[in-house]
Structures are given as C-alpha cells and as structure tokens.
C-alpha cells in the first residue's frame, strides 16, 4: 500500500536519479499500447459473444414448436385437439397455429414464393410461448401421445444448447485472450525493466554508496515503468475504442459480425484497461527490481 502511495506522490528529484533515455522507454510504450489495443478488441468480442449467448438463450428458451403430421382430413381435428391440450397445460402462456401464409413464409427461403402449401402434405405448426416458470415437456409429450398421435413437440433444446454453448465458449476465449494479453504485457515490462536495471548498474551502485535503500531505488524504476505502461495503454485503448466505434452497427441482416462493438455501459469498460496495465507494470517491475537488486547486493 505504501508502495502505491509512494508511486502516486510526485517526487521530481527521485524521478531524476534514473537516466531518462533508453530503448526501454519505446519498448514499454509500444508494448503497452499494442496490448491495450488488442485488449479492447478481445473485450468487445467477449462482450458481444456474451450478449449473443444471452439473447439466444432467452429468446429460444421461451418458445417451442408443436409439429402435427396427420392425413389431410384429420389435420384440423388434431390441431384443435392439440390447442385444447396446450391451453390446459400449466406453464404455457399462449399457443397458436401458424396460418398458411406464415408457413409459406417459413418455407420460402428453400422452395421459393410460389409453393402451394395447401396442396402439399406439409405438417401444421403450432407456436408455443411459455410463462417464466416454463412447462413440463415430458408430461406434455405423454398427454399429446394420448390425445394427438401425430404431434411432435420440439422445445428447441436440441439446437439451442450448441448455439448457446458456442457463444459461451467464444466469450470465454475472449476473456482468456485478455488474460494472455495481460501476461504478455507483464512479460514485456519485466524484460524492459530487467534491461533498464542492468543498463543502470552503475547508477544503482552510486545510489547505494550515498545511502539509498533498495525500496527507494526500486521505486524510482517502478514509478517510471508504471507511468510509461499506463500512458502507452491509454493511447492503445483510445485507438482500439476508435476502431470498435468505426465498426458497422448491429443489424438483423449482419447478425453477429455487425454486433461486435460495445453497447450501453460496456463502452465504459475499456477505460479500465490503462489502470490495469499500470497495475500489471507496477507488479512486474517491482518483482524484477527486487530480484535484480538482490542479485546486485
């Protein structure tokens, strides 16, 4: 905690004891910037996948389809029987049979607009909407078996699960990418800090000669690397945000690929990336400085 307060407090004289030049400045700035830029996209991907999983889950979980296949002369009777069964089933909010036009619209992508649905033995479909509590699918199937022999209940579980699972895994991969980006940033900052400490062995020797504690010496390096990483990450995150903002907006036709950006308060999350990069750099540099200073003792 004292390290963090010491880091925040400005100490111009202490900052000046470490020479300012060196390739480690550019390395840290560039690494932090690049990693923050990638982190913004990984975050956008993860959040979009999360939204998609949630949307698919909610939309599909509350609807089911009852398909009735029966000879033409029994079709209306069986549809009416099925609707009666559904009306008396607890957990079902509404059920309605699709009319010919709706069924034709469903088949249109495959058979074109001129398909004579009435002339073909296509099954009739009943759309079921559940209440929040849902219904007992096994119980309903048993009842339908007895009263509407041509009915097949599809509660969407079979094809909803893999979709939701895929979206969830995509979200997980997004978060994993963010973790890996954080790890890569820590590794780059550690390398840069090690190089800076090694290049400044003479400076460290002078500071020790005049009575500097290891904490003081480490703090001079840690503060510098933390500020560099935070600055680089701020620039990278800003450019990343601009890139996400320029992506096409979400629409029904484009679906997932056009909904890759942030929505609502999610736009605020990338603001956390620079301070997190700073914390990562702080921990990485502090560990590197402690190790190097122990070695130089």
């Amino acid at each position, binding site marked *: 905690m004292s390290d963090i307060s010491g880091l925040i407090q400005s100490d111009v*004289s*202490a900052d*000046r*004891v470490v*020479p*300012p030049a060196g390739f480690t400045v550019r390395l840290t700035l560039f690494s932090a910037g690049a990693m923050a830029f990638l982190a913004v996209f990984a975050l956008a991907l993860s959040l979009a996948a999360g939204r998609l999983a949630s949307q698919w889950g909610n939309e599909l979980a509350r609807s089911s389809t009852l398909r009735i296949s029966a000879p033409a002369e029994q079709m209306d009777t069986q549809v009416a029987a099925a609707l009666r069964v559904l009306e008396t089933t607890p957990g079902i909010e509404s059920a309605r049979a699709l009319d010919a036009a709706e069924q034709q619209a469903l088949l249109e992508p495959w058979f074109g607009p001129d398909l004579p649905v009435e002339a073909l033995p296509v099954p009739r479909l009943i759309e079921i909407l559940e209440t929040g509590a849902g219904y007992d699918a096994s119980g309903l199937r048993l009842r339908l078996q007895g009263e509407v022999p041509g009915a097949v209940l599809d509660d969407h579980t079979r094809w909803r699960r893999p979709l939701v699972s895929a979206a969830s895994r995509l979200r997980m991969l997004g978060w994993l990418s963010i973790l890996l980006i954080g790890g890569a940033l820590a590794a780059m900052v550690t390398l840069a800090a090690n190089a800076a400490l090694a290049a400044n062995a*003479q*400076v460290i*020797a*002078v*500071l*020790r*000669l*005049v*009575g*500097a*504690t*290891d*904490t*003081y010496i480490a703090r001079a390096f840690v503060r510098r690397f933390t500020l560099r990483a935070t600055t680089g990450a701020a620039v990278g995150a800003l450019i990343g945000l601009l890139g996400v903002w320029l992506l096409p907006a979400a629409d029904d036709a484009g679906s997932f690929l056009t909904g890759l950006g942030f929505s609502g308060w999610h736009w605020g999350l990338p603001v956390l990336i620079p301070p997190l990069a700073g914390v990562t750099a702080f921990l990485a540099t502090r560990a590197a400085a402690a190790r190097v*200073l122990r070695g130089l*003792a």
Partner: protein
Amino acid sequence: MIELENVAYSYGGGELLSDLSIKLAPGSFHFLTGPSGAGKSTFLKLCYAALMPTAGQVRLFGADARAMDRDAIALVRRRVGVVHQDCQFLDHLPLIENVALPLTVSGKDVAREETNLKDLLHWVGLTNRASALPPELSGGERQRAALARAVIMAPDVVLADEPTGNIDWEMSQRLLQLLIELNRMGKTIMVATHDLALIRAAKAQVQARVLRISNRRLQLAGADL
C-alpha cells in the same frame, strides 16, 4: 564508531586480509598505506559494509554488520561519507544535484538545504561549476565534488580511497586541507593512500595515526615516517 575485531577477508580462495583489529575513535585521523593490491580498498569497503568479513566481526555504530539487512546498511552509509579515487557520479545530473544526492535519497527537502548546499560548494571551490555535468569536470573538481557529496549529510566518518590519485600536488594539498578542516570539526577521517608526501604534510598539521597493511595484516606505521 567503527570497530573491526579479528577480521579476515578471503577472495577467490585466497585470504586478502587477516586478523585485523582496530577501533576508529570519534574525531581521529587515520592514514592507511600499503602497496597496491595490499587490500586498502577492501579494508575501507569493510568499514562501510560494501563487503562483509569472511571471519571476525565488523561493528558499525554498535551493530554487527553481518546482522544488518540492506536497509540498515543504507542507513549506516548515510553516516559514513565515502570518497573514491574514481569518483562515481550520475553523469546525467548537474554537479549540484550530484552533491545533493545523499539528501535526495534520504527523503530530505533539498530546496530547504539550498543554503548549506551553496556553502558547501563554496567551501570546496566549485560554486561556479554547480550546473556542470560530471564529465565536464576536471579530476580535481571531481574529487572535491565527491568530498562535498560525502559530507553533505554531516556524517560521523569520512572514508577516502586514494582521493589524490588522479590530481596534481597543488590540488592534493587543497583536498588535504579540506579533510583536515573536517577533522577539526570532529569528524573521523580515514584516508587510504600510498602518497607519503601527503601523509607527511598532514602530520605537520594534525595528529594522525598511520596504519599499514602488510602481509595481509594491519600494522602501526607511524615510526616509519
């Protein structure tokens, strides 16, 4: 203040110093002589815990050096001013900031010490070189700057390792006068040198004990001079 008791120091399998015992009393002035490679610098490093003895005990201001952690050693070094032959400075900082470095690292407000700092630079004759970078200084200027840095914290002890090694006789005399002045202020001084003329010049003005490292051991060498 600084006390060595049966101290030995081995390096690379061989013993460089053996069975050294000495107490540096407050206000005393010591010269340490001996041939090159005899271990004068090593002896001084033992006195400010830059090296630890391989046998025996070094006590710095009452504490066993070997029992000190690195922070405690850093605090001891604020009480011991050190002047090296190859004065070590931070080349990117101007002279005045290098001289003020002990104040900076100990967390003191350098701005409040500005008057003392200027007085000190005047004392060592470097007022007009305050903003020069170390690589721009001559050998004598660097030595005087190193002395100014060594005493800015008002240390109890000043250790100087061949402080006149790279400078001419006139500048050596000037530096010696500064060390004698410090001693008259009550500071304990130890100067490692093989410059016998310097020792003679000092003994004419101040009561100094001359020690010699010979065959790994410390001897009183005053009678030889």
